[in-house]
């Protein structure tokens, strides 16, 4: 991790209201290149809302976002992708009815030009080939990339979602609860994947309830409570107890 470089991403004063409910109030977040950031907080603290703003799924009511020191507008998921921000949602956002290779390339299909460049048609062979390669690298077994995502197991689906995010050489990967519902061995696999991303220089923001994961792989932790910043510290400089206290705002004894 490069400490001399300026931040890759800066979210400044982000607020979001849903009617009379305030989801986020003046929230700040910074992310450095190659940094792994853990985003934690109790249910309803605003974590999902914040990353959805970053991924373009929703728009903020107030606040600005800076990417590489330039202000950017992320109005829809495509904008985020164009910046190199890929998101792996908790529900994976895959279309079950469609085959794996189309899901990987959803919305940005490989195309061939015909009729002198006038019309684009799908290059399915290419997509199948590339999908196969991506998934092989993730070391999870697949029978065929033509399989409908519906027919896959949870772990396979996660692999497809991860593969999709990875394929487009993102600068930032957002992961929403990547370890929920996983067995211990699988959790370790996710940790390895995150470490892997990091060696490639990709910055990562991940939301989790599993605080041990933060302490296992993250460089920094940001805590949200009630829609506001509650803590922002580097991992070596804090403890589990301190994080929990920040999450709940109490003096909690962690045994």
């Amino acid at each position, binding site marked *: 991790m490069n400490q001399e470089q300026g931040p890759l991403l800066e979210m400044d004063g982000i607020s979001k209201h849903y009617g009379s409910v305030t989801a986020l109030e003046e929230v700040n977040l910074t992310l450095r290149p190659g940094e792994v950031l853990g985003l934690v907080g109790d249910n309803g603290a605003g974590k999902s809302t914040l990353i959805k703003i970053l991924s373009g799924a929703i728009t903020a009511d107030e606040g600005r976002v800076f990417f590489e020191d330039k202000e950017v507008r992320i109005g*829809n998921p495509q904008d985020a992708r164009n910046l190199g921000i890929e998101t792996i949602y908790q529900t994976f*956002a895959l279309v079950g009815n469609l085959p794996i290779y*189309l899901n990987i390339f959803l919305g940005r299909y490989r195309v061939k030009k015909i009729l002198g460049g006038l019309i684009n*048609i799908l290059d399915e062979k290419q997509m199948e080939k590339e999908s196969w390669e991506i998934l092989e690298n993730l070391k999870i077994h697949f029978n065929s990339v*033509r399989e409908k995502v519906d027919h896959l197991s949870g772990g396979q689906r996660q692999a497809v979602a991860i593969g999709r995010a990875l394929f487009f050489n993102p600068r930032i990967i957002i992961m929403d609860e990547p370890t929920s519902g996983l067995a211990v061995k699988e959790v370790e696999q996710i940790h390895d994947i995150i470490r892997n991303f990091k060696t490639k220089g990709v910055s990562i923001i991940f939301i989790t309830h599993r605080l041990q994961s933060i302490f296992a792989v993250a460089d920094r932790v940001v805590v949200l409570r009630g829609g506001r910043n509650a803590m922002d510290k580097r991992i070596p400089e804090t403890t589990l107890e301190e994080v929990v206290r920040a999450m709940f705002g109490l003096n909690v004894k962690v045994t």
Partner: protein
Amino acid sequence: MILFALGLLLSLLTPNFLRTDNLINIVRQAAILNILGIGMTLVILTGGIDLSNGAVLALSSCVSAIYLKEGGSILVGILISLGIGLACGFINGWMIARIRIPPFVITYAMMFFARGLAYIVLQGKIMYGFSKTFRFLGAGHLFSIPTPIVFSVFALLIFYFLLRYTPFGADLYALGSDEESSRLSGIKTRNRMIWVYTLSGLLSAFAGIIYTSRLNAAEPVIGEFFALDAIAAVVLGGTLLGGGEGSVVGTMSGALIITVIINGMNLLGIPSLLQSFVLGCVILIMVASQYFGGKLRGVPSFFKPWSFRGA
């Protein structure tokens, strides 16, 4: 294929069925339903519905009829008609995509609106007697194939290609299967929705041109049940009402099935009073047989996008 079975049955029941001119008749009559069905397929694939097809057909043909009767050029008349269809469809799509009005409601409202407008425009009269060139569109022959058939095949090919081979088509299937996931994955869902309804309106107008040309008359009351028939053709053809699965080829067979049944009823001399009864029964029986006989095998899997030969 169900179509074959039906054909077989009918040819046994009446000698007239298999006559060439009858068969051509059938395909020709199915052409209009087919074209409307294509538009409806697009809409239903994305999980929506379009009740305004018939009314838009009427409106677009009435307006252009007035223009043509005043001696306007055919080309402009056609453009006017298509333009109206496009506009109505766009309004539908925009309201659905941007303001999030349920498709049923807005196309229902549009149905009323267009139908009323058609009446107003023609003041309840009928326009008939168009120029010979215009009549060629619906009643002529191209290499001895009736023009409606040519047009419907043409439309079928274009849209088959669109759905099966282009990114746009892929987006439609994704959108219909899971709108939110598609949106999160970067598909321009709103844009696609608007397009789909616009195309449906356009095709309705296109069908209107052929219909008016064939009848050599335009009146505001035409197309009353066309939308429902189109929906039936689409559903019979294997497209799911919830979206995400289906094909235009299936819709074509659906349209043919319906037309064959009606034709058969006419040939067998079944009184028109009973026809809707028989049609209803047959539809029910056929769908029931789907249940008993496994998946609908009316469409060869080659034509169904996303079905894999040998996955």
